[in-house]
């Protein structure tokens, strides 16, 4: 479907307005929608998010410390500046080296989550698996309580006790 306004680009924004019982459908391309001042609630592009996070004022650094963007990972040499351009990290260590900067980004892109609660490789050891299972059960317990599903909550609480 072509944009109703410019009739050149494909319409990707579809609006349905109902006023006085009349239904008006509008189909626009991204550019025309933006020109008409329509703000679209979609996922914020990762790079935009990153540049805002990187430009956010950092905690006051000592005069001897280099600016955050230039700090490099000792293992792979990745910098935040480079990451914000390429959108890819340089090595597994980066998650700890740049943790302070990455955490807000992770929270934003992962719907507020910052802790893994899925599969654990066997090599990580049985303790790790147990811990992950506990985290998982506690999260489900909180969810059940929030939804006032007390029977489920009681069952989860018993399961947690047994594991501990």
């Amino acid at each position: 479907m072509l944009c109703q306004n410019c009739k050149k680009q494909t319409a990707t924004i579809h609006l349905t307005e109902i006023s006085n019982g009349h239904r008006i459908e509008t189909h626009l391309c991204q550019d025309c929608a933006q020109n008409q001042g329509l703000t679209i609630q979609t996922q914020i592009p990762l790079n935009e998010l990153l540049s805002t996070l990187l430009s956010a004022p950092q905690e006051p650094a000592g005069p001897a410390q280099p600016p955050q963007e230039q700090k490099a990972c000792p293992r792979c040499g990745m910098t935040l500046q480079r990451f914000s351009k390429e959108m890819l990290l340089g090595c597994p260590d980066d998650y700890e080296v740049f943790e302070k900067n990455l955490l807000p980004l992770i929270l934003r892109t992962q719907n507020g989550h910052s802790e893994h609660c899925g599969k654990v490789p066997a090599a990580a050891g049985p303790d790790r698996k147990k811990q992950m299972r506990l985290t998982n059960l506690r999260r489900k317990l909180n969810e059940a309580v929030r939804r006032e599903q007390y029977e489920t909550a009681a069952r989860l609480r018993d399961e947690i006790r047994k594991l501990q």
Partner: protein
Amino acid sequence: MKLTDLSKQPSPWLRESGPLSEVVISSRIRLARNLADYEFKPCLTPERKKEILEIIKNALLALPLEQPLFFIDVEEAAPLERDLLAERYLISLPHARSDGPRGVVVAQSEHFSAMINEEDHLRMQVFAAAQQLEKCFEQINRIDTLLESKVQYAFHPRYGYLTACPTNLGTGIRVSVMLHLPALKMTGQIEKFFNTARDCNLAVRGLFGEGSEAVGDFYQLSNQVTLGVSEMEIVENFSATIVPKIVDYERVARRKLLEETPEAIDDKIQRSLAILRSARLVSSQEALILLSHVRLGIHTGRITDIPLSKINELFLYIQPAHLQMQAGRSLTPDQRDSLRAQIIRTALSVN
């Protein structure tokens, strides 16, 4: 496994049928994994990439699976062969078009493929026809568990499986279904689908994944959140909640079309079939739109002399690399439109 032979047969898994097949074309689950001892893609030298390729390739080929596995060196493959692999969803478009040492391990039945040195060191995926996400997960999880005893994955106690891009962090899982929603589109209710996707934090893409447009009422729906929820929760959310809801929307819309405007819908379906049966030049975009209507015709009982499998096969055969592999030479867009029309005419001819 010879690539020229592939171009003459449909992906074997696509021939199967399964639950909700009138709306759900296929299911796919992908896992992203990286080796603990190697840097991520941006910081790898070609030598390090070669090492990764060898380690993962050998580990995969040694797995005790029922199906024989084949390795294809994507760096060495001809551009047309790479495109053929992408058209069959065995590799991604970026994997086909990028450079450096990289490859793919493919199962004979093509239901499993593992890209090596894509955005992550390893991206494995399992496909199935219709809505069979649980089956996909069971299979890919088994392969992943077998593999983790042979290679050491980058895993963090807090963040889970570490990926080159933080958007895949945690489980590294991408669950997707390919949906056919012509009635929602025709009745102006496709918003319902987009809203459901948005409310559930899901991404909507076109037929060929990231960056592709939705042509012919085909939409790919996939999860975006990979951290803080378990793999099974993501899979179950799709199979028990999201997919049934959207399938229901589409079914209601189809019923409504058939009850309220049966003639208009019949006209659309039969007109599309007639064009496909007689056209001499068909672009791939036009073909997808017309085939979408024919598919709707088969599912609503308006077309009875064409099996669904034939339509599913055509979706593959009419793509550029498949056409050129069949022709045995490179074709101009006009020549492709002509061969495409010919293949469709032959497949849908009235005997």
